[in-house]
């Protein structure tokens, strides 16, 4: 049987992911009134809590059937978002590189795991109170082939995410940076304008550091200039220390790091259930 302490370690990681995502939601809401990727953060919160409950029986929150229903909604939502991405400029490429595809797959895997647990529980298998119990009763998946496919997707996405993350960081090594993320020259000007318009002159000189730009984030600037302006006009509500923490939590590397942690943990759970 997989030692409980190992499962607790992964459960703790999932709780950290849930906590970070909760903080991201809170920060973006309270500072700007907007949360552009709120659906992703909400999904991470739900998955983190649910997976922690599967890994450690003491952390269970809701019945399995309720979680199945919750993740059915989450999966349907991201399926709609993926379809919207596919209809947009990214086209079919959205399936390979889309922003929401990993979350759609994660949601489907969660449904599968909870459905598998419920099925095993109704069939009389022992220890359905969490992964700790489950790991002692192997062979609980009725369709292990699907589980294996999900495992391959999870490990594949984890290494792809890590490659993309480190690839972007390497390429943008000399770019303008906001909390570690590159900002091209054009975007830097927009930041400066937005900051000036909102009475925040420190923005351009303080948040942005020296370097050169890149095309991908320049397009990001175009997409977000309205949000940027309104964000810069928000009244001051946070202390400098809050700001530092907030800046760290809003770093996209944190989001991708959370996704990698969830992919690896989900792969582990699926393997334990095969």
């Amino acid at each position, binding site marked *: 049987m997989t030692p409980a302490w190992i499962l607790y370690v992964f459960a703790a990681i999932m709780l950290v992911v849930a906590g970070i995502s909760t903080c991201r939601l809170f920060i973006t809401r309270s500072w700007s009134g907007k949360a552009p990727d709120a659906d992703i953060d909400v999904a991470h919160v739900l998955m983190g809590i649910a997976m922690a409950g599967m890994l450690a029986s003491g952390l269970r929150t809701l019945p399995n059937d309720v979680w199945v229903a919750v993740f059915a909604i989450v999966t349907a939502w991201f399926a709609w978002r993926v379809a919207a991405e596919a209809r947009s400029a990214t086209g079919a490429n959205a399936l390979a590189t889309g922003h929401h595809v990993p979350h759609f797959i994660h949601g489907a895997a969660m449904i599968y795991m909870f459905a598998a647990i419920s099925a095993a529980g109704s069939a009389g298998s022992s220890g359905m109170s969490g992964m700790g119990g489950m790991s002692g009763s192997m062979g609980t998946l009725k369709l292990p082939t699907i589980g294996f496919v999900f495992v391959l997707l999870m490990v594949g996405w984890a290494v792809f995410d890590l490659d993309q993350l480190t690839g972007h960081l390497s390429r943008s090594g000399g770019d303008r940076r906001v909390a570690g993320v590159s900002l091209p020259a054009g975007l830097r000007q927009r930041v400066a304008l937005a900051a000036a318009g909102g009475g925040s002159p420190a*923005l351009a000189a303080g948040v942005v550091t020296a370097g050169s730009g890149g095309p991908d984030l320049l397009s990001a600037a175009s997409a977000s200039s309205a949000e940027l302006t309104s964000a*810069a006009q928000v009244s001051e509500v946070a202390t400098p220390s809050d700001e530092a923490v907030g800046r760290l939590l809003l770093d996209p590397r944190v989001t991708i790091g959370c996704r990698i942690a969830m992919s690896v943990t989900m792969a582990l759970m699926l393997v334990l259930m095969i």
Partner: protein
Amino acid sequence: MVSDSPAAAVAGGQLLRAGASTATRQAVTPDARRRLQLVLAAIWLLDGVLQYQSFMFGRGFSQMLAGVAPGNPAIIADPITWAAKIVAQHPVPTNAAFATIQVLIGLGIAGRRTIRPALAASIVWAVAVWWFGEGLGGILNGGASPVNGAPGAVIIYALLAVLLWPVADGDRSDRPPFVAALPVGAATAKVLWMVLWGSLAYFAVTAANRTAQGLHDMVAGMGGGEPGWLSAVNRGAADVLAHNGLAASIVLAVLLGVVAVGVFLPLPLSRAAIVLAIVIALLIWVVGQDFGTILAGGATDPNSGLLLAVLAAAYWPASAVARRPTDSTEALAS
């Protein structure tokens, strides 16, 4: 000057989010070598996750190690037995360490800044596991067969790590004809290929594998605990092989021999040989190895078929026009 405005931070945060979205959409396109490195990373990660399975923390792991010692020379078998005893005495910490090491190797290869130390670690780890965990793949005890995983799945990890080592691409005129040739040169890479696939051809017709029921028994014994469809595949293949072991072994050896020399042939024939290698590897992986028995629970790796297919992909001959860099880990990491 440091920003002290929460509005600035919010603006930055919005940018970060927008940047994340856009960056995710506009993926860094990996070149052929990087793609294969990522596949290797994924397989290492899968191995690490499999190592966390319940039975590995009990007596199963040490028994598995001890089981590869018999039939090997004492100089090989004694250290295996010693290692198995240590694992039996401390199953939880040793297996937890093994699993974590493999997960870290996988994640390290996936990271562009950590790929070199991770690949180096993977070579050391793979050679150690090949000896202590696989008994050198059974090549010295007469039990090796290309169908059951000879010459040992894990040694192919080490070979891949060498052949996929990130080195600076040369200029377009002197770029090697296939990915695996980049770090060691085309001639050395071809010799390594011929040795590997030639050894597989040899193992296909060793005494134990060319008996009338040898291959049949091997395939028929795979179905236990597998999903119904895979068991049915095993039964069907076993029926075909029944009493035809000698003929099947000779055919397999001939095909493997063709693959072994295929990389020395002109471009069209070389490509045909690579395709044949991939087909054979995947056939072995599915029919002979049942995906490494992962679906039955109790596997520690996906076995050799998948690795052989990945290796073959590294030898796919590119046309001269295609030999231009689109993305270089070397350039990014340096």
